[in-house]
């Protein structure tokens, strides 16, 4: 079965991509992902705040106790005091890109205007096939306007696009006032790819400890419906490639996203649950389904169930909502 496709103009052997995760924190991890069969690997995200925090911590630790005893004026070599920057990440990126024959995409979560552009440029120089901007942001200040948040994200994309020549994708969350309009704005600003959606990690409360907890959970298939809805709406309406992420567990989930209009389907939770070889299971399942349904290439099925251009998308969604409620009332969730 021919599974090759393109993502942001990059040729991939298949549409399954390992999304940013701890699985790609080592060169061996990236090798295992590639050996498992994925078409590309997105490295774990580099957070600008973490780089700055480590630099500040190292400076504090090298200074602690120095110049306090004549027989030992310092406790560390000069190198300890050097600004580490994203050196470890860039070294991993360079070696990972050399080690595998699938594209390795760097993931960046910047915090300052200079940070976005500077780190992106370094990632390109280190051999990134593309850069994914992780614009995860929770505007905790309730006086921040939605438009200001959106403009920050568009500005970050623009700065990075000015700084690099490799393709740039934006991984966005669903919590914009109008996700579709935000996607169009990013598309117009030059995004080569849109990754839908980042998961909003919400803390939970431990009633016994009377404390908040991080409450991280892997995604489940039901979570795939939200990004699928927007991918179906955006397919054919943006120039950027569409990448689906969240809610992939079995081959049918991959097929669902492709039918909705995704160019590639990203997963981490399934690989964490079942191992990196599960990528092969997903791809074999996709091939078997395609053969059963008479498809011979990914192109043939991509976007078959999207909301066609020219459709009144708002009316389409409204009708879907009303129809869904009607079906639920008539079924298991209806009045007795």
């Amino acid at each position, binding site marked *: 079965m021919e599974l090759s496709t393109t993502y942001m103009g990059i040729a991939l052997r298949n549409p399954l991509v390992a999304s940013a995760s701890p699985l790609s924190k*080592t*060169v061996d991890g990236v090798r295992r992902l590639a050996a498992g069969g994925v078409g590309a690997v997105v490295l774990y995200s580099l957070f600008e705040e973490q780089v700055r925090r*480590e630099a500040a911590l*190292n400076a504090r*630790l*090298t200074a*602690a*106790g120095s110049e306090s005893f004549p027989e030992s004026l310092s*406790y*560390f*070599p000069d*190198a*300890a005091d*050097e600004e*580490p920057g994203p*050196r*470890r990440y860039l*070294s*991993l990126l360079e*070696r990972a890109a050399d080690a595998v024959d699938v594209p390795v995409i760097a993931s960046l979560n910047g915090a300052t205007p200079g940070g976005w552009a500077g780190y992106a440029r370094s990632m390109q120089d280190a051999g990134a096939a593309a850069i994914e901007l992780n614009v995860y942001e929770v505007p905790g200040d309730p006086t921040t306007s939605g438009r200001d948040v959106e403009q920050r994200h568009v500005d970050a994309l623009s700065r990075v696009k000015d700084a690099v020549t490799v393709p740039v994708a934006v991984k966005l969350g669903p919590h914009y006032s109008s996700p579709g309009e935000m996607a169009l704005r990013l598309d117009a600003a030059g995004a080569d790819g849109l990754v839908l959606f980042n998961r909003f990690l919400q803390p939970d409360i431990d009633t016994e400890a009377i404390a908040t907890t991080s409450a991280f959970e892997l995604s489940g298939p039901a979570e795939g419906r939200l990004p699928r809805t927007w991918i179906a709406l955006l397919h054919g309406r943006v120039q950027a490639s569409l990448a689906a992420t969240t809610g992939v567990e079995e081959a049918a989930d991959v097929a669902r996203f492709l039918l909705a209009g995704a160019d590639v389907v990203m997963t981490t939770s399934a690989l964490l649950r079942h191992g990196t070889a599960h990528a092969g299971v997903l791809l074999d399942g996709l091939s078997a389904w395609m053969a059963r349904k008479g498809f011979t290439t990914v192109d043939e099925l991509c976007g078959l169930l999207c909301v066609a251009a020219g459709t009144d998308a708002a009316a389409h969604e409204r009708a879907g909502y009303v129809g869904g409620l009607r079906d639920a009332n008539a079924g298991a969730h209806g009045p007795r």
Partner: protein
Amino acid sequence: MIAYSHCIAHGIEMRNGLDQQHRAVASGYWPLLRYDPMARSAGANPFLLDSPRPRIPLADYTDRELRYRTLANTDPPEAERLHGLAAEAVAQRWDVYEEMATRGARRFPADARKER
């Protein structure tokens, strides 16, 4: 008695020294053991392994110390290579200690001190 002591030269927040000592033991970097020759005389295994098996990755211990992070920042591939060897050494040493802790007493040298 050989005791691990946290130190300013390790490059840690000194107020967290005991937490770091806990990680040293939990990662297998610093197993806790005793050797009591008198136990051998009583027919018991003189080698006592007091800490449980390593239950956190070695990196959870080393990444918190500037003395290790410095190499990771200046020469990441070399740091990874050495870390891999160190993790292997931790596992090998643990295997040896576990084997010693489960041996019969007779496989240890007898206490040669003159009985009083």
